[in-house]
């Protein structure tokens, strides 16, 4: 208990230090950087009325974050939907693995900024293009972790499945799936983090309402304090998402 208190105090001190450094930088070498106080003054409308909608691109920060989160959820869902079976196939079939692993290793490091134009060409609309990009970029940790999970199922369990002559379906539900679940979840956690990372780029380029879109619009309107507001929001939401997934993962491991 005392330890938690101490840790919280230390984390808080760290935040204060960063804010001081920020204030110092804006006061000295970076005059274009709004100070913490100025950022607050210009952003408080968005923070204190987080759910207001004053215009298409002029909405409370929570509402903006919700748009982004909803978009991320869709993209992430798509990534999981495609990535999990793909990971299973790669892990289960050496043939499949030899065939597609090199391709995947090549596709994996491609930046969202590279996929997005392709998505725009393919779908001719910004929303599906954004989802396409999020799914494509965030899928890989799910694919690779699931694959690793399948490949590291202990031979003992596979032998049991064979000796009991379990049907392929039972083998999957009673042995493979439960054995792979913790790996899958680690993959999901990483994928969600990536999806959130990609959202900003996707919204910036497509100009859709959301924290990323808002950030880009305020950059174009030269309201720099709102950029900082967006950056902080992105960080806090990303942190919260990771914590939530972490808790789900821990619960899964305990079960």
């Amino acid at each position, binding site marked *: 208990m005392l330890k938690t208190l101490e840790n919280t105090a230390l984390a808080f001190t760290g935040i204060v230090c960063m804010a001081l450094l920020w204030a110092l930088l804006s006061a000295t070498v970076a005059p274009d950087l709004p100070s913490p106080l100025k950022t607050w003054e210009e952003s408080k409308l968005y923070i204190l009325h987080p759910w207001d909608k004053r215009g298409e691109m002029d909405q409370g920060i929570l509402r903006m974050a919700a748009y982004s989160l909803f978009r991320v959820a869709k993209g992430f869902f798509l990534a999981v939907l495609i990535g999990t079976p793909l990971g299973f196939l790669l892990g289960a079939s050496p043939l499949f693995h030899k065939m597609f692993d090199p391709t995947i290793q090549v596709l994996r490091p491609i930046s969202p900024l590279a996929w997005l134009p392709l998505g725009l060409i393919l779908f001719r609309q910004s929303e599906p293009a954004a989802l396409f990009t999020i799914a494509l970029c965030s899928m890989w940790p799910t694919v690779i972790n699931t694959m690793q999970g399948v490949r590291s199922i202990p031979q*003992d369990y596979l032998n049991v499945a064979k*000796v*009991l002559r*379990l049907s392929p379906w039972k083998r999957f539900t*009673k*042995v493979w799936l*439960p054995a792979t679940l913790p790996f899958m979840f680690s993959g999901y956690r990483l994928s969600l983090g990536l999806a959130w990372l990609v959202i900003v780029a996707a919204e910036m380029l497509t100009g859709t309402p959301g924290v990323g879109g808002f950030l880009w619009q305020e950059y174009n309107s030269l309201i720099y304090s709102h950029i900082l507001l967006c950056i902080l929001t992105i960080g806090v939401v990303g942190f919260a998402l990771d914590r939530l997934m972490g808790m789900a993962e821990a619960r899964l491991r305990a079960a």
Partner: protein
Amino acid sequence: MISERPLEITSLTKVFETPEGKHVAVKDFHVRIRPGEFVSLHGHSGCGKSTVLSIVAGLQSATFGGVVIDGREITAPGLERGVVFQSPCLLPWFNAIDNVILAARQAHPELPSAQHRAAAMRYLSLVGVGEFARSMPAELSQGTQQRVAIARALSLEPRFLLLDEPFGMLDSMTRFELQDLVLELWERDRKTVILVTHDIDEAIYLSDRIVLMTDGPEARVGLDLAIDLPRPRERRMAMEDPEYFRLRGEVIRFLEHSGNQFAKEAA
């Protein structure tokens, strides 16, 4: 009568491909096992006895020769062969009874699941761990887990029990208890048992016959030793019975001659 046909291991040869070339682990291994017989496979560690059992279980395939049951060659695992591995190999995400139910359902897929549960409970009680039915494997001791694994194998209602050093990881008290359990189960319904073990006393105490394997590579049958000790057996025998001493001596003499030499002399 079909069930009177023996289990036959004929010219069984297993070659492993290794980076250093071919490794002939077992060569021309030949054993014929009568229904209801309790046979132990014994030999120095690494002699390939587990390989033989795993081929009988259908988990590995023979390079040449093979295993014939009821006049048919084995190519895959079958429900007529229940296997107990060295480690209990319970699925850790299911509790004890669910692990057993998994097997019980395979034996009688046509029955409703209440009956599978009842059967699983019956086998758990039979091996003395009914009270742990709802415990997760991780909460159970090695010995208890192995009992559950035996219950799982039994609930397939197999004609053959294949035991691959099932007591190897247990402390000696627990080992004795489980040996007695296996003996008791065998006396009950006389399933055909093949036991792989590296424990001489275990082999003599339990078996009708010990098949001693020569050292690998190219391990084969070095000595086929009938154990004609009266049944039911008692552990006391090991201290008093001169016949027991003679058999034990013979096994040790074989092992000391490092298997291969002995076989050559005998040939």
